[in-house]
C-alpha cells in the first residue's frame, strides 16, 4: 500500500521554466541562493559541519544506484590538512535503461553545479571534476558552457561570495567504457589510465584521486542539495517513501506509449508509473519490468501488485531501485533474447581485470546464445545458475554481480520459457 501523493507533485529539479539552463534565468528563479546562504549566513550555517548535518538528515540516498545516504558519505572525509581534496561527480551513466542525468545537464545544469559547490564547501574540497561519458558530447559542451558562465559570475573560483572558500570546477570526458561508472574505475580514468577498479580499502575518502581524499557522488544526488539547503531536510524527507525520500528522476523506456524521464516522488506504485508513461503500447499486456537498470532483478507482472518504487518495497519481491531506470516489457517479449542481450552487454563491458568476471561473463553469454539458438539443454540452465554463484562477490568491483543477478533472477522467474527453448535432449541413451 502506498500513500504517496504524486498526482499533485510539482517538479523541483527540472521544473517547467523556459530557458532555465541559462545562468541568468536560474539566478532569477532563486539560483545560487543556497550557496550564498551557506557562505555568508553564519548565524544559520555554522561552518561546513552544519551543512553536512542538514544533508545527512535529509537522507538523500545516492541516485547512482547504491542508495547510500549522501551526507553520511560526505562525513567520511578525513579532517582537512591543507592539501588538495577532491569531489568527483559521476556523470558516466551507462547502465542500460538509465538516461536521467543528461536531463539535468540539458535543462538545469546550474542546480547540479550549485549542489556540487555546496558539497565542496561542506567537505572542504579544493577541486571538483565532473566525469561525463564520452558519448554525451552534446551534454559535455552544455556543461562546459554552464561552468564557464558560473566562473564569470564568480560562483566558481576564488573567494566565492567574498568568503574564504575557493574551488575550481572542470569537465572530464570519458571515451566509451561502462566500467568507468564504477567509482574507483572513474578515478583511474580521471587519472588518465585504463578504467580498472581499485581494491578497497583504502576507500576514496582516504585515498582517492592522486592519493588524496576524494568523494564521488552521482549528478542527480548533488542536484538535490540546493533544494535541501533552501527548504530544509524536513521538506525533503516529507516527499515520497519514508526510507528512500525525495524526488526521483524516473527513466521509463521499452513498451510504453510515452517513454521518457519523469520527475516524481519516490515510492510511486510501479503500475501507476507505467500509466504515467502513457500505458502499454498497442494495448498489449504487461509481461515484466526491470525496475532500475539492467542489473536489477527482473519482476514478472504478477509480482507487481502493491509494489512501489522504493528500496524497501522492491526488496519484498526480490529486486532493487537501482538507478530508477525502468524498462517495461510487453507480452510478446522474448525473455531468452532479452537475457542474452543483457549478458552480451556485461561480457563486452567487463574490464578483464578479475578472472571470475572476465571468464564468467563470457560463459554466461555463450551458454545463453546456445539456448537462444535452440541448441541448449535443460542442464545448461543449472550450469548458468552455478556460474553466477562462482562470479558473485569474488571480484574487485560489482560488475560481476551486476552480470550475475539478471541471469539468476530471470531464469528463476521465467524458468518455463527457458526450458521450452532448451529443446536438445541431454544424455541420449545408446
Amino acid at each position, binding site marked *: 500500500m502506498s500513500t504517496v501523493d504524486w498526482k499533485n507533485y510539482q517538479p523541483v529539479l527540472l521544473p517547467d521554466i523556459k530557458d*532555465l539552463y541559462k545562468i541568468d534565468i536560474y539566478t532569477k528563479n532563486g539560483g545560487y541562493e543556497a550557496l550564498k546562504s551557506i557562505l555568508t549566513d553564519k548565524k544559520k550555517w555554522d561552518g561546513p559541519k552544519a551543512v553536512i548535518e542538514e544533508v545527512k538528515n535529509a537522507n538523500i540516498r545516492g541516485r547512482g544506484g547504491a542508495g547510500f545516504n549522501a551526507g553520511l558519505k560526505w562525513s567520511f572525509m578525513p579532517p582537512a590538512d591543507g592539501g588538495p581534496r577532491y569531489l568527483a561527480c559521476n556523470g558516466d551513466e551507462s547502465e542500460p535503461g538509465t538516461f536521467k542525468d543528461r536531463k539535468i545537464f540539458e535543462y538545469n545544469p546550474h542546480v547540479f553545479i550549485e549542489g556540487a559547490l555546496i558539497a565542496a564547501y561542506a567537505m572542504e574540497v579544493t577541486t571538483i571534476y565532473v566525469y561525463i561519458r564520452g558519448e554525451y558530447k552534446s551534454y559535455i559542451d552544455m556543461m562546459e558552457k554552464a561552468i564557464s558562465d558560473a566562473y564569470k559570475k564568480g560562483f566558481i573560483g576564488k573567494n566565492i561570495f567574498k568568503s574564504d572558500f575557493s574551488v575550481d570546477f572542470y569537465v572530464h570526458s570519458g571515451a566509451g567504457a561502462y566500467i568507468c561508472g564504477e567509482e574507483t574505475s572513474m578515478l583511474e580514468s580521471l587519472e588518465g589510465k585504463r578504467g580498472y577498479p581499485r581494491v578497497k580499502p583504502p576507500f576514496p575518502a582516504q585515498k582517492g584521486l592522486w592519493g588524496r581524499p576524494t568523494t564521488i557522488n552521482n549528478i542527480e544526488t548533488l542536484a538535490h542539495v540546493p533544494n535541501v539547503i533552501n527548504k530544509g531536510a524536513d521538506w525533503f524527507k516529507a516527499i515520497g517513501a519514508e526510507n528512500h525520500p525525495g524526488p526521483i528522476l524516473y527513466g521509463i523506456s521499452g513498451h510504453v506509449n510515452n517513454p521518457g524521464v519523469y520527475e516524481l516522488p519516490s515510492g510511486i506504485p510501479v503500475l501507476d508509473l507505467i500509466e504515467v508513461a502513457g500505458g502499454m503500447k498497442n494495448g498489449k499486456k504487461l509481461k515484466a519490468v526491470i525496475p532500475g537498470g539492467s542489473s536489477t532483478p527482473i519482476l514478472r507482472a504478477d509480482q507487481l501488485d502493491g509494489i512501489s518504487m522504493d528500496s524497501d518495497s522492491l526488496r519484498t519481491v526480490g529486486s532493487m531501485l537501482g538507478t530508477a531506470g525502468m524498462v517495461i516489457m510487453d507480452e510478446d517479449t522474448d525473455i531468452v533474447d532479452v537475457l542474452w542481450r543483457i549478458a552480451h552487454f556485461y561480457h563486452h563491458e567487463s574490464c578483464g581485470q578479475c578472472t571470475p568476471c572476465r571468464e564468467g561473463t563470457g560463459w554466461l553469454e555463450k551458454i545463453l546464445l546456445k539456448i537462444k539458438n535452440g541448441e541448449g539443454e535443460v542442464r545448461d540452465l543449472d550450469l548458468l545458475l552455478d556460474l553466477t554463484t562462482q562470479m558473485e562477490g569474488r571480484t574487485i568491483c560489482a560488475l560481476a554481480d551486476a552480470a550475475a543477478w539478471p541471469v539468476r533472477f530471470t531464469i528463476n522467474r521465467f524458468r518455463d520459457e527457458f526450458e521450452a527453448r532448451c529443446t536438445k535432449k541431454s544424455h541420449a541413451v545408446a
Partner: protein
Amino acid sequence: MAYEFTKEDLKEIENIKAKYPEVMPATLPTLWVAQRRFGHVEPEVQRLVAATLGLPEAHVHGVANFYTQYYKVKKGKHVLDVCTCLSCQLCGGYDILHHLEDKLGIKAGETTEDGTFTLNQVECLGACGYAPMLQVTNDRYVNHLTKEKVDNLIEKLKNGEELEYEQIKMPQHKNI
C-alpha cells in the same frame, strides 16, 4: 605520413594540462584532441600524443585500446553507431541495424568501399527512452528511428549537411 599538432591544438593541450596536478590525466583529453584533428588515433598518432605529453608510448597505447570511442584504425567519414542494447533491442534496434546493413551493403563493423560510412553495433548510449537510436561519429544522437528517418539521415550525410541537436522535451513540460 608524419602527424603533427597545429599551434591551436598545442595551446588546447596546454589548457588541458592546467586542469590537473599531473600530466598523465591529460591522456584521455589529448587523445580526443588528436582524434578530432586526424580522424583516428592509429599507432603513429598515439606516438605523437605520447611524445607531446612526455609519457610512455605503452601507456598511451594501453589507454587508447581500453576505450571504445577512440578509433584505433581509420574509419569511414561518417561512423554510424547503432544501439541494440536492452531498450533499443525491445524497440527495434536490430531492425534498424539490419536495414542499414542492407542499405549500405555492408555488415556491422565494416566500412563502405568508398569510405563514406562505417556501421557499428554498440552498447547502451543512454538514450533508452528515445529508442531505437544511433550516434553519428561520436557526436550527434539521432533518436526515434524509423526506416524512413534512417534513409533521410543517409541522404543528409551524403550531402554534407550538419546534423542539428535533437532536443527532446521532458514529457510533463510545456514551456521548454
